[in-house]
């Protein structure tokens, strides 16, 4: 707790501002939850199906942008330069796939969940069960990371224990997810989008003006420095990077095939994530589903096009502040974040100067990715309220994503398992009770993983995309665009896809099945990019098996023809 105390001493102003801003935003979320309680399963699962495209776009954007997007992404780009593009293109390009290939048809299909589609389209409860299992694996790996994120933000900014932070987060999410279901979540996410985008943009704009004189960060990082030297910021950063032995910032160091594979896996994974897809069940008409995908991406792109600018500002600032400067003259923020363990300095050659270089033996400074967003306002000497705003924004990002995932988990259990497979006669009222109960259980499980994070959580969050890419995406695409695809093909494709992804991931991440190093990667593709291979495998297996097995029944082929026509989408039904 020493580190937290130093925090308090360092910034009474920041602390109070943080309490005020977090307090106001949390009150807002709870108020919205009470106002928008769910009264039926339809409201609980798909918010009644009457959400406007704008509100759904905002909710989708907040649902989508997690603690990782808000806190970590700019930092990761900052340290990986060009290579960071895999996240930028990967996590936005998927929306093009969603809007053009998935969302309109799934909306027309008009059910509550992704396993619903899999089960009905492939006329089999076995397919439905495979869908449920995939949805649960993907959502649980993802949600544990979010709860941890909530705990971290609380502990860093509010001087509480990480576990207390997780529990506070659990109670808030429990309150509005259990009470409001999709309806409550949708309208809190609208509020959370506003909070998080404001919190991300304000410091970015301030810093862009400071460094380049241009108030638009997207243009600022391609501009000349404000010091009148006439040097472009990116040229300067390239120079600084190569001087220290790093790759040129704008060049990166990953292989082309790996960049390609990771980007595609993230895109396809995004389009296959159940908590994203399900958002498009909440709008009224097919045309609204298309439009809200566009609005969602526009709102997401505001943050995603700013992040690489923040990355460049922060990296340049950091190198200039620390490189070859005496440790004793470091500014206050350096010492402050050092006490949290996110910055560590070891003076290997005892010269009192900080050597920050690519060579691992000579490098003396280790900086955590997350610093770049969390400490950026302090590094740029912005006012206390801006620093507090970042905390509120990070919490909004983590909570909104956690809530969306919890809803998928609860719907998978109460709707796909209980209603569709175990007890089809259950009344709407009882199903709603079951949905709420499973949400409570899901929050508790997520909280447990937040407090006792299994070592693999951080590694698997990125891999949740690979799993979604390997399982759902091909099954849904073939289900819409290939009328003759049958259950045998789809089920074997999903099973082979997700198993091969799990195999590759556990082999190279956890050392199972003999383990292996980077040199052993197949085709030079990292586990993060393997979702692309597993997805292709899924497609091939599905089509080959289909050729040797019976056609789907006429009724299913008619269903496929029906979902291709946008009119008469009607309301989502059981």
């Amino acid at each position, binding site marked *: 707790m020493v580190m937290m105390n130093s925090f308090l001493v360092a910034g009474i102003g920041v602390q109070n501002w943080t309490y005020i801003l977090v307090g106001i935003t949390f009150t807002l979320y709870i108020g919205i939850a009470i106002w928008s309680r769910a009264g039926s399963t339809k409201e609980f699962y798909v918010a009644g199906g009457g959400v406007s495209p704008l509100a759904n776009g905002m909710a989708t954007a907040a649902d989508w942008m997690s603690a990782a997007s808000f806190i970590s992404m700019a930092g990761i780009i900052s340290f990986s330069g060009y290579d960071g593009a895999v996240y930028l293109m990967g996590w936005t390009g998927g929306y093009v796939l969603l*809007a053009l290939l998935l969302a309109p048809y799934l909306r027309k299909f008009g059910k509550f969940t992704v396993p619903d589609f899999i089960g009905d389209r492939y006329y089999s409860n076995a397919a439905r069960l495979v869908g449920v299992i995939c949805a649960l694996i993907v959502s649980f790996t993802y949600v544990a990371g979010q709860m941890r994120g909530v705990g971290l933000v609380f502990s860093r900014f509010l001087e509480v224990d990480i576990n207390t932070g997780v529990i506070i987060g659990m109670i808030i999410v429990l309150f509005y997810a259990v009470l409001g279901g999709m309806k409550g979540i949708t309208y809190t996410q609208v509020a959370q989008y506003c909070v998080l985008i404001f919190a991300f943009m304000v410091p970015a704009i301030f810093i862009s003006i400071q460094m380049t004189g241009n108030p638009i960060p997207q243009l600022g990082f391609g501009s000349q420095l404000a010091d009148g030297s006439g040097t472009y910021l990116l040229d300067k950063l390239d120079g600084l990077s190569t001087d220290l032995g790093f790759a040129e910032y704008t060049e990166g160091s990953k292989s082309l095939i790996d960049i390609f594979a990771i980007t595609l896996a993230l895109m396809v994974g995004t389009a296959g994530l159940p908590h994203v897809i399900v958002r498009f069940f909440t709008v009224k008409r097919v045309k609204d589903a298309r439009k809200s995908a566009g609005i969602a991406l526009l709102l997401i792109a505001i943050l995603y096009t700013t992040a690489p600018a923040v990355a460049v500002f922060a990296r340049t600032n950091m190198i200039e502040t620390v490189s070859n400067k005496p440790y004793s003259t470091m500014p206050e923020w350096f010492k402050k974040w050092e006490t949290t363990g996110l910055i560590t300095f070891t003076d290997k050659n005892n010269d009192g100067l900080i050597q920050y270089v690519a060579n691992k033996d000579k490098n003396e400074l280790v900086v955590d990715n997350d610093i770049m967003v969390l400490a950026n306002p302090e590094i740029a000497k912005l006012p206390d309220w801006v620093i507090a705003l970042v905390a509120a924004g990070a919490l909004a990002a983590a909570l909104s994503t956690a809530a969306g995932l919890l809803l998928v988990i609860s719907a998978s259990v109460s709707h796909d398992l209980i209603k569709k497979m175990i007890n089809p006669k259950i009344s709407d009222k009882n199903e709603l009770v079951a949905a709420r109960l499973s949400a409570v259980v899901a929050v508790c499980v997520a909280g447990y993983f937040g407090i006792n994070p299994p070592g693999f959580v951080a590694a698997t969050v990125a891999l949740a995309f690979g799993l979604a890419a390997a399982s759902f995406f091909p099954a849904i695409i073939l289900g819409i665009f290939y009328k003759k695809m049958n259950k045998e093909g789809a089920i074997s494709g999903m099973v082979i896809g997700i198993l091969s992804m799990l195999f590759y991931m556990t082999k190279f991440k956890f050392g199972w099945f003999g383990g292996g190093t980077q040199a052993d990667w197949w085709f030079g593709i990292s586990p993060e990019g393997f979702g692309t291979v597993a997805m292709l495998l899924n497609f091939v297996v599905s089509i080959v098996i289909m050729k040797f097995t019976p056609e789907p029944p006429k009724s299913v082929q008619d269903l496929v023809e029906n979902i291709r026509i946008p009119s008469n989408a009607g309301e989502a039904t059981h």
Partner: protein
Amino acid sequence: MIKNKAKLYWKENIRYVLILMFIWFIVSFGAGIIFKDALNEFKMGGFKLGFWFAQQGSMYVFVILIFVYVHLMNKLDKKYGYDE
């Protein structure tokens, strides 16, 4: 007749999707990844062009693509009487 109409509608839809997906591929995997080094020879302000496509341009194009698709499909829905 109705079946035929649905078939024609679907065909036009697929054509739009293929064209837009082609652009999607070219800006991201093409300009941002495969041809990045060649494009980096050109500069736009302080940006090397390949780098800009990878970290900025592709995302702008993605947003535009979806709205173009929305527009095209709304028109197509009207043409075939599927709008509501």
